[in-house]
């Protein structure tokens, strides 16, 4: 009797336990899946070895592939609040007298958030057609490039900008330049692509160590990794890594890591990609009813104008009105500092800008992990992938102020 009851007791207990098994197994299965799937994605891949030069050449020579894919852009620049900054700039421009300044500030805001923000986007490429579809929550920003020009559409603003270039003028310019080039280069030796690449690499090599990293799977495709490491320790940039598809030579991912950091401050990568021509319909855009459309034709300079501009830039003519707003470069390579003369950003930044900057000697500074921007008290702005001291040095250098 005792035996029987203890046996049934055991079987009852084991039956009770067996009914909890699914509840124990389910999280384990999910956990294993969560660990295994990314492990598969980072599983060892072995592509035929390439030297850095071969890899750069492979990437450069590969024709642009028609593709569609999803890219994820992640930005941890350490910006306090980007919208605050662009808002301040936009507001400052709006307060200024000139309308174009306001428009350019709005454009700047859009471009900054597109270029520096974190978002997920779809990319479609097919020959001359391209589209970037930024998937915002409950909204969408689009850049279409097709035969009609470039359309920028923002669903939240319900605004479209149409940028057009006179194709005929471009063709004419091209033809003119080509004949001019042919004249100029008649005596010179036609450089082979290899020679040009070698030259480029050699020049790059002076400032940057170019290496090939470990092969990896990116968006499910075997890819090479090209690693650029600045030799100049004065820059904030620690390393730039580019993943290049082993089959097509298309760049699949890029990331910038700050000096001394473990994780990239900025990365952009395909999470999935298909190398096939997308449906042509994805490139078509007609502004929907009720959309504010801004037309922006871009004037095409003639060859003569281009020549003149070149000459002006070469001679460093400081007398013209235009050059007041033109940026000035200090230094070379990774530690190049860009100087924007006073007035380039519209009226001096007020209140909102103060919230994202800190006061330093000679002005206020905006610090991020990769880029530092110095707004001097006299209205100039200095920016570069360098520390504040380098910017201050550039600001106090006599050459900088001579431009004014």
């Amino acid at each position, binding site marked *: 009797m005792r035996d029987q009851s203890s046996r*049934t007791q055991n079987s009852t207990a084991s039956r009770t336990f067996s009914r909890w098994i699914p509840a124990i197994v389910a999280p384990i299965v999910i956990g294993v899946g969560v660990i295994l799937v990314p492990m598969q994605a980072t599983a060892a891949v072995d592509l035929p070895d390439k030297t850095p030069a071969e890899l750069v050449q492979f990437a450069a020579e590969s024709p642009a592939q028609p593709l569609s894919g999803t890219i994820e852009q992640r930005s941890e620049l350490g910006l306090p609040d980007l919208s605050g900054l662009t808002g301040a700039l936009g507001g400052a421009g709006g307060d200024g007298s000139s309308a174009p300044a306001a428009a350019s500030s709005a454009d700047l805001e859009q471009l900054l958030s597109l270029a520096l923000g974190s978002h997920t986007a779809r990319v479609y490429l097919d020959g001359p057609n391209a589209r970037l579809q930024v998937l915002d929550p409950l909204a969408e920003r689009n850049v279409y490039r097709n035969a009609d020009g470039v359309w920028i559409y923002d669903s939240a603003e319900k605004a479209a900008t149409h940028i057009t270039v006179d194709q005929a003028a471009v063709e004419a310019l091209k033809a003119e330049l080509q004949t001019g080039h042919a004249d100029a280069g008649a005596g010179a030796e036609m450089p082979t692509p290899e020679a040009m690449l070698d030259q480029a690499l050699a020049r790059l090599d002076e400032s940057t160590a170019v290496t090939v990293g470990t092969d990896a799977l990116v968006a499910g495709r075997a890819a090479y990794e090209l690693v650029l490491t600045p030799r100049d320790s004065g820059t904030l940039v620690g390393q730039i890594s580019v993943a290049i598809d082993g089959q097509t030579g298309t760049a699949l991912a890029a990331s910038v890591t700050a000096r001394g950091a473990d994780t990239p401050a900025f990365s952009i990568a395909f999470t999935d990609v298909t190398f096939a021509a997308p449906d042509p319909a994805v490139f078509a855009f007609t502004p929907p009813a009720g959309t504010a459309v801004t037309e922006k034709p871009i004037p095409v300079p003639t060859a003569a104008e281009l020549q003149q501009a070149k000459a002006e830039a070469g001679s460093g003519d400081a007398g013209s009105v235009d050059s007041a707003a033109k940026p000035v470069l200090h230094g070379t390579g990774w530690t190049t500092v860009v100087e924007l003369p006073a007035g380039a950003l519209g009226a001096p930044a007020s209140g909102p800008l103060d919230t994202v900057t800190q006061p330093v000697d000679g002005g206020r500074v905006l610090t991020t992990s990769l880029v530092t921007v110095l707004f001097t008290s006299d209205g100039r702005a200095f920016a570069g992938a360098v520390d504040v001291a380098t910017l201050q040095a550039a600001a106090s250098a006599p050459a900088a102020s001579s431009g004014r």
Partner: protein
Amino acid sequence: MTGFAIETAGLSKRFRAQMAVDGIDLAVPSGSVFGFLGPNGSGKTTTIRMLLGLVAASSGSARVLGTDMPRGVGSVLPRVGALVEGPAFLPFLSGAANLRRFDAADRSAGGRSRPARVADALDRVGLSHAADKKVHAYSLGMKQRLGLANALLVPRDLLVLDEPTNGLDPQGTREVRNLIRSLAGDGTTVFVSSHLLAEVEQICTHVGVMRAGRLVTQGTLDDFRSTGAVSVRLQTPDVADARAVLARLGLTVDAPAGTPARAGGPADATRLVTARLDATPPEAVVAALVAAGVRVRGFEAAHASLEQRFVELTGEGFDVVQ
């Protein structure tokens, strides 16, 4: 069906520190009407829940209709109709809709004959007129009837009825009694738990008594009665003499003084003397009384009533056993 409709071995249920059911060996013969008795909290309902697979036994085993429970829940329960701890229905549905719902839950019940089954069951408990009334408008007695109807949806081999006449008027109580009798007549085993001893006495062939989680006794109703002591009821005016004789014969005399059985003169009034008869034959008692000159006006040797027996086994009153 032969043998036992319900058979348990060492069936126990422990709720944390308390032993609700403590190793009971229940044996309910097929075809019997088994009265399951016990004070509140003695473990009757927990036992019933274990038999029906609602509660898992802590130890021991239970077989219902020849199949181990709770493993056989799916195959056995369609043959078992039950009323457990009072009827329960969704108040916002009609009586018929509630029955259809429970019937649909039974995998072995076909869908086509469902309306007919529901109508039959309602008719059987006299609720046809209230079939489409929402249950929240039902009286306690109507709900009780509906609960019985649910137990009778399909022909059953075993009925487990927990307090089936609770809330019913005398008329309804008699109907239920007749219903149980007729079902038992058809060969259905009926397992009735009840407080109403008179009712159990009228319809049951077998009884089992629970006390503090233990099965104190079980067997046929006749055995149950006869195992108890036989008591003597003597009607006589000669109380003192009678008591002396009974005591001399070794009987335990109950009351210190006889009570008047009938109104009459103080000297000549007939009084009742009761005593417990142990091994002494009743005829020997009568002979001794007559020989002693006691005027025997009435004499009865009878088994104790079920209630007396019940109180003997479970203690005084219906106190909740802790």
